[in-house]
């Protein structure tokens, strides 16, 4: 495509479009997309650090060391490997879901149907 000053709008059409939202008719600038994307990347990297820390960290690499602490009948490293990491995984997804709604409404790209659905 040639260099031009007029922005070109791209929209991907598909057989299985997501439902309508209140921002359906808005064209979003690529600057905004980039800012939104940076915020998303920061959030998900933070959460992935926790994801790694509870499973590979506490459940595997440091499991042996953590096993010296016993909580509610569980050696701690063993607990992380067989119970704790799974609970944390669940919490991580819900935190992400919640925080993404905050980020999306800040940038005006949420997919809520009406005003006021956002948190």
């Amino acid at each position, binding site marked *: 495509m040639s260099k031009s000053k007029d922005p070109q709008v791209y929209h991907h059409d598909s057989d299985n479009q997501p439902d309508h939202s209140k921002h359906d008719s808005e*064209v979003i600038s690529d600057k905004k997309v980039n800012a939104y994307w940076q915020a998303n990347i920061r959030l998900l990297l933070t*959460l992935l650090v926790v994801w790694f820390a509870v499973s590979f960290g506490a*459940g595997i690499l440091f499991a042996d060391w953590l096993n010296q602490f016993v909580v509610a009948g569980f050696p701690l490293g063993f607990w992380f*490997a067989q119970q704790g990491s799974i609970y944390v995984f669940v919490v991580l997804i*819900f935190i992400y879901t919640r925080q993404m709604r905050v980020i999306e409404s800040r940038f005006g790209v949420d997919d809520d149907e009406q005003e006021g659905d956002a948190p």
Partner: protein
Amino acid sequence: MSTQLLTYVAVGLSFALYIGIAIWSRAGSTKDFYVAGGGVHPIANGMATAADWMSAASFISMAGIIAFAGYDGSVYLMGWTGGYVLLALLLAPYLRKFGQFTVPDFIGERYYSKVARVVAVVCLIAISFTYIAGQMRGVGVVFSHFLNVPITIGVLVGMAVVFFYAVLGGMKGITYTQVAQYCVLIFAYMTPAVFISLLITDNPLPQLGLGAEVSDGSGLTVLQKLDATLVDLGFQAYTAPKKSMVDIFAITFALMVGTAGLPHVIVRFFTVPKVSDARLSAGYALVFIALLYTTAPAVGAFARINFIETVNGSNYAGEDDQTATPQFFKTFEDIGLIRWVDKNGDGVVNYSAGSAFEGAADFTDERGESGERLLANTPTNNANEVDVDRDIMVLANPEIAQLPGWVIALVAAGGIAAALSTAAGLLLVISASISHDLLKKTFRPDISDKGELIAARLSAVVAIAVAGYLGINPPGFVAQVVALAFGLAAASLFPAILMGIFVKRMNREGAIAGMVSGLAFTVAYIAYFKSSWFGAVNSADHWLFGISPEGIGSIGMLINFAVAFLVASRTASPPDEVQDLVDDIRVPTGAGVAHTH
């Protein structure tokens, strides 16, 4: 009513329910057939995903594996749940925004290439058939154990039921039967687990019972008691690792990434209405999965304690309830899943570390002095006389804990639900990849919606027939390597999708080269160690970096990434339109993204 009659009733009722749902939810269009019309509620989709995901292996085998592997069983617990975090954060929302029907759809369009699409279809079919053979086998095994029918008949009945709702209802039928199947399987799993937790620890919650004190007055916790008992018998402590740390790390990683890359799981997120629903739905799915996955380690630990206490030192021919070998031991011995060789001829069952005899079990038709089934194998020199198939733990649990017949019937219906729901999900992605990706998008673009729907149903029929054949005649090689499905998904599809969303610069050449090299390396490594063709010794001393074939998908994934980036850096950028597509799928809504090129 006898237990067998109850089982027929439970299984029959569950089948009637699934078929009723299938008739109610007939698919009328390709959109219904591929993605259930795209309007499934996130919670319903969460349940369907959980049933889709939890297979015969999760329901029947996992607790047994943990019972005998102890801490090492954690690779499955973390590996098969951690992948959902990756799905929710990295893949599902963007693929939902992309808004097509299949996984190869995304790869084909994002990498502007029919070759990439066909490579993705090949990966998908290899992954899904490897997986499905085990499911049909699972249906057959449950039938033969609980209803005393040959495995072949069990597989055929399973095929007929799946045929009904997968072919008629497509994704729509599958989704709502999976919701029902989740309810059946989770109830069937939790009920005996709660009873056994109460029996052993007085705590009704298995998740807490695993850490609680054993109610035998010894003052030890479940894990302390297991550690002490196992060390006494010459085993490793339950809470200590047996595999090397690097291998545990690699297997967990490969299973997590593989889970996120499995096509039948990914397409479930194409069925919800919106991008935000895809994230939410992954969260609900993991809640429903976690319910079973946090119970399984408790079930495993309780089963191991129970097994040792009731079996070790018991009198095989005894009549007295206190010291006699329990009935379940003999039931499973009769169908060949428990083996006992009375080495010292004292009629007492001795259980300890080491294998009881050399080679695979080979029963003779004769009975020994105590009435046990005799084996032709050479006994080993150690004191252990018992050889047990670890798959029996969940099936035997209700019998070990002497629970009523209806609980046993429930477990049978639950095991079948787990196997059928996964089989149906796999069949759907196989048939969609043939009718949609190969026909509609590659070789017959002028096919009508109606024609495509017929093609989808026909390919589902063929896929069921192949799956059934593989279930009745399990190929030794495939049956051994469920690891293959995860390794392939980790090394091929996951990196290609991830880079498609997060790396704008990734191009056609890079993605194809990455998928092909990741796939080739992983298949070659697994075939080298797992098949008998190369005469390789499958042990830690011979593995690359000490990583077993189960964990090699992690390395395959790294190879995929490395090759893809190298090739992409030396070839042309993707066209502007594709880079715009990436921007468009990154935002959940809007009429498009404005670009100044």
